[in-house]
């Protein structure tokens, strides 16, 4: 009996808004303090990789989890962002910020172009088309030696700077990455709580029902690809300047697969899920390095067990905050609410 009660308590447990603010402040403070406490370059590098993959997983979650298009070509956008930024900075001596903007626009257009042929496809077919697209992109990178230097990659990508402040150390990149990730999280949170995000979700659930209430499925499918592509492209730009070296081997389809794994492990449609999935799948292979030859076995087994016991992922749509739209906008309502007499036609 007691056990049941505590279980019920746990289920109805809610964090009050005030405590939530405190928790958030503590979390941000901890994230700010991290690079000063952890001075190990290797660990810091992994944390920055976590930031990158979190954003990539979030952007892919927008395409797979919210709009329901199973894309296996996410690495294309990531790689394209990296290459466009690097090339603009190296060949045209452009500043990082301008290159970032241009590459984001270009990647957005490519996202739209890739979405067009997949609009009438479903599930597995989208996966195949996007997978093929990713391979085409990689082969172009390898073979267009005049532009991309092929498999040799692009070394010595300049570091970004604001005025005389140059991002030249891991700590500085840590903060740049952190800011980008927070912005992406805020963006995703607001999107999922908006009518736009909900329309996307309803389109994913049932296209016919969504059209019957005036939602144009094509519009939302395109937008999902464009937004997802732009975020991935921005992360690619960040990756390029952070590493200082990019080559086609960083953008193989296995990257796409691992991004999909992050999204699925984390749970489709959930923002915390994608972040957890990305962090776990970035840290786990590194942590298992000591077992060298067995690590992929352990990794694979962990994934299989996860999917058997928690097929919906760690934090997916099932944990979505109910009526978030109402909760966010309820303040203006409270006054009017009591006044109306709640009589339903059904009970007349």
């Amino acid at each position: 009996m007691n056990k049941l009660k505590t279980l019920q308590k746990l289920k109805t447990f809610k964090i009050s808004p005030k405590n939530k603010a405190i928790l958030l402040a503590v979390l941000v403070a901890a994230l700010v303090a991290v690079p000063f406490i952890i001075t190990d370059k290797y660990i810091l590098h992994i944390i920055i990789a976590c930031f990158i993959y979190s954003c990539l997983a979030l952007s892919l979650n927008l395409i797979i989890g919210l709009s329901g298009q199973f894309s296996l070509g996410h690495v294309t956008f990531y790689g394209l962002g990296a290459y466009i930024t690097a090339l603009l900075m190296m060949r045209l001596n452009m500043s990082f910020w301008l290159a970032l903007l241009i590459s984001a626009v270009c990647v957005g257009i490519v996202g739209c172009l890739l979405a067009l042929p997949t609009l009438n496809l479903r599930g597995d077919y989208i996966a195949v088309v996007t997978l093929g697209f990713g391979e085409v992109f990689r082969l172009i990178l390898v073979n267009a030696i005049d532009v991309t230097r092929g498999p040799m990659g692009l070394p010595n990508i300049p570091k970004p700077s604001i005025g005389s402040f140059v991002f030249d150390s891991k700590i500085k990149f840590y903060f740049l990455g952190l800011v980008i990730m927070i912005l992406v999280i805020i963006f995703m949170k607001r999107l999922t709580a908006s009518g736009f995000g909900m329309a996307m979700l309803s389109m994913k659930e049932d296209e016919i029902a969504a059209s019957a209430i005036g939602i144009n499925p094509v519009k939302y499918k395109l937008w999902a690809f464009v937004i997802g592509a732009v975020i991935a492209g921005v992360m690619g730009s960040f990756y390029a300047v952070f590493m200082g070296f990019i080559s086609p081997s960083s953008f193989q389809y296995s990257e796409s697969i691992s991004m999909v794994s992050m999204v699925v492990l984390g749970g489709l449609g959930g923002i915390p899920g994608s972040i957890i999935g990305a962090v776990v799948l970035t840290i786990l292979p590194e942590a298992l390095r000591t077992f060298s030859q067995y690590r992929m076995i352990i990794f694979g087994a962990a994934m299989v067990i996860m999917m058997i016991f928690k097929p919906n992922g760690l934090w997916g749509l099932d944990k979505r905050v109910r009526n978030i739209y109402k909760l966010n906008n309820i303040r203006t309502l409270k006054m009017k609410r009591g006044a109306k007499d709640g009589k339903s036609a059904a009970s007349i």
Partner: protein
Amino acid sequence: MEKVLQVSDVTIRFGGLTAVDHVSLEQYKGEILSLIGPNGAGKTTFFNLLTGVYQANEGEIVFKNTDVTKMKAYDRANFGIARTFQNIRLFTSMTVFENILIAHPGCNQEKIIPSVLFPRGMRKKRGAIIEKCQDILRIIGLEDMEDELAINLPYGKQRLLEIGRALATDPQLLLLDEPGAGMNGFEKKELTNVVRFITDVMQKDVLIIEHDMKFIMNISDRIVVLDHGTKIAEGTPSEIQSDEKVIQAYLGSGTFEDDDE
């Protein structure tokens, strides 16, 4: 009387099968029109033609004095034709309230930039939308269940919720595809009240497909009978009840009595 909907000679073929064959009908403002017919008569296909799920091979559909024959489904919904589905199609991972909310044009036509950059500035507008949706929940009598997931509702309530969702699009014409299927007597009474409220108080026009003859005879102003894709009769409930062709289509012979399931 003013015509809301004018369908002339609409035909659709699937391969060799003509599912709807030169059907014409008109609906006048403020009336409840019913569409009945034996299974496979083409009633739902006809609905799909009206709402744009299928495009007609021939014929013309005029709604509010505009030709909508070539319009896409979502455009027709925004233009004022809303529907429910025979096999319930609710958004199952969303709550009761969200199912209504997402159908409200103010919510589903939200632009991406203001909703991401200035969500606070939209509070007032969104507040008004929420109010509107809660009113609709009151009409269908589900105001106490707004936080429940749609899939957890009992069957009859799910049907009501679908009507609510269609209402939230603020339509002029409401197409109900077997709204009473699977409902018990009490729920059907609720349904009748809701449909009456929609036509009498909200001033909307309703087109119903239904098999329950008691319900149909009780609620409709006029009835159109389809059989094998063609219209075989049209008239008031009493006219239809005594129509030879209709009786033959349904039974071969006999009457409509005790169709209580």
